[in-house]
């Protein structure tokens, strides 16, 4: 009755890849950030699918941990973006390159 695990894993892999591509091709820091969230979500999907496959609740548990960490990360990340914007008037990652060697 239930769908095979592969379906979900493939979907997860595709979403993850879209996230990776987004991180690589976008210049807007906020969108890059969203893409990271997308990747985390793809991982979450895999977690839940495998959790169902194995019949263990741990997978869902880790999803909750991931969400907590993601929330923390977003808060910090957006704060950094806001303060970067205050100083440099831009959030274009191409222009934020003072760490150039």
């Amino acid at each position: 009755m239930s769908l095979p695990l592969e379906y979900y894993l493939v979907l997860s892999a595709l979403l993850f890849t879209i996230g990776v591509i987004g991180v690589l091709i976008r210049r807007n820091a906020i969108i890059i950030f969203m893409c990271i969230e997308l990747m985390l979500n793809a991982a979450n999907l895999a977690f839940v699918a495998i959790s169902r496959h194995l019949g263990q609740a741990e997978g869902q548990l880790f999803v909750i941990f991931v969400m907590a960490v993601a929330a923390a990360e977003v808060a910090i990340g957006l704060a950094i973006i806001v303060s970067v914007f205050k100083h440099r008037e831009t959030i274009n990652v191409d222009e934020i390159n003072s760490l150039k060697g």
Partner: protein
Amino acid sequence: MSKELIIILLISPLVGFLINGLFSKWLKGNEKLSGTIGALAVFISLICSIIAFVTINIDSNATLEGDDGFVYKWIAGGKFSVDIGFHVDALTTVMLLVITGVGFLIHVYSIGYMHGDEGYTRYFAYLNLFVFAMLILVLGNNYLMMFVGWEGVGLCSYLLIGFWYEKQSATDAGKKAFIVNRIGDFGFLLGMFTLFAAFESLDFVTIFDKAETGTSAINVVFGETTKVTLMVATLLLFVGAVGKSAQLPLYVWLPDAMEGPTPVSALIHAATMVTAGVYMIARSAVLYNLAGTGVVVAWIGVLTALFAAIIALKQNDIKRILAYSTVSQLGYMFVGVGIGAYASGIFHLVTHAFFKGLMFLTAGSVMHAMANELDIRKMGGLRKKLPITHATFLVGALAIAGAPLLSGFWSKDEILHSAWGSSKIIYIIGLATAFLTAFYMFRLIFVTFYGKSRVEPEVDSHVHESPAVMWLPLVILAVPAALIGLLLGVGGHDSWFHHFTEDVFPKADKAPGSVLLFMAISSIVGIAGIAFAWTRYKDRAPAAEPTNALQKKDFSWLVANKFYVDEIYNTFIVQPIKNASHFLLWKLFDVGIIDGIVNGVAALIRVIGGLFRRLQTGVVQAYILSMVIGIVLFLAYYLFFVN
């Protein structure tokens, strides 16, 4: 006895230390609170100690040994396994009472003594930490825990000697104490290693059992004979004791340690820490008995006693006299434990803790009154202005001099009596030392408290008795200092104290001869010393520094300069090491080789870094791109080459 009791006992000073140490910023403005916290912490320990003591007193089987005392598996690796655990028996409880009892009184005394000091909270934090470390030392059920405490008290001693760190002499003294102690600790460590090599354990109970049954592991170092191994081990441990308890030849740090605050001298450098060596030997009594190395201990002890007593004769610094006296009395204790009269040695430790602690505190009281004057030649006639201080000091001096029925009389006499049975020469030297002790102590008293006042006029007007928070501990401490011998020691080898500790120590042979006779001899010698001091220093100050060359050659001049031991050490040990360090280690090895290698590596890395610098574009996505390439390659590898 419950483990919880012991844990509370142990943790309480630690909590005090943490509060005073961590919240010093907030406590700084509130001396009362800070001091109360410090004293309270020790008071809790004292209560616990009393409970533990009473428990053992009622039921001598209520000890905490072996697996009973187990708390926590600390280290476990291969054969090496050490627990954190407690060993509580009669000996421990006696030590606990001394540490927390004297410690508590000294904490209370310090509340007054340290009043207005810049580092008030820091002081109490250190003091609590010291009590904690000392408790670990006596409570541990293995040599490693003892060593932890051993090092802990060493650290606190260092911190407290150098407490007034803006004073050069204080920091120097602290460093000296620390370095000299390291030599001893090195011996202790080696002793521990030897014991572990022989018995594959550091637990007291395990080691003692194995040593007694002769079932040591095959010993590669010292052949098959357990006895040789034990001799080596016990002698090495004794080196540790020599360092910690300031015996010949490592005693030099103790007189200098008087740079610390006086209560510290009383607690650490008279009552507790310096007796750790004695405790250690008493704890290892089984090993010393089997190894037969007690003779060495006794001889070192008696020589130290004599040597220090001689030096004390010509000192003019009130605290230094007491310091040398401490060294000398510690010598007695070593004589006691060395000749196998462990109970007598520990008994002397107890009485000494009380009367010497008392005397240091009174000396502190004198200093307090005299605006930190230490030179007894600038005192005199203080009896009238400081009646309580005088009275309590007199009690202490009488006790140490062996005046009949006071505590020192009982304990010292026991040791001497036992010594007679072991070696007549030791006995005679000990007796001579007893005479000297009485003499220099009363020289101190007469010069300080009697005769005409030589106090400098501007100081004279301020001389006053200390506040109650200081003299009350003195009075309280004077009572046991005077009477504890009477309570515990009447009856020589059948005394209450001997019965109390009989389970702990191996049975000693009863010394021959009549107890009363020995007592009489000791009393006569002590009183003779006092009388001799009376005739010489009744109303005259010690001579000023010798000035002309002719005077410089006699023996007293040698004594006054402490036999030049510090100078000899300086010339023959310290300077060569310093030179070697400077030229060989620093100039050649450090600067030449190590720095060369380090700088070379750094230069190399800089060149390589210059090459890689170009990769650092500062654009985040470039980094991510390389990461993704890495992931893709890695996955490709996984897909094609794994399985």
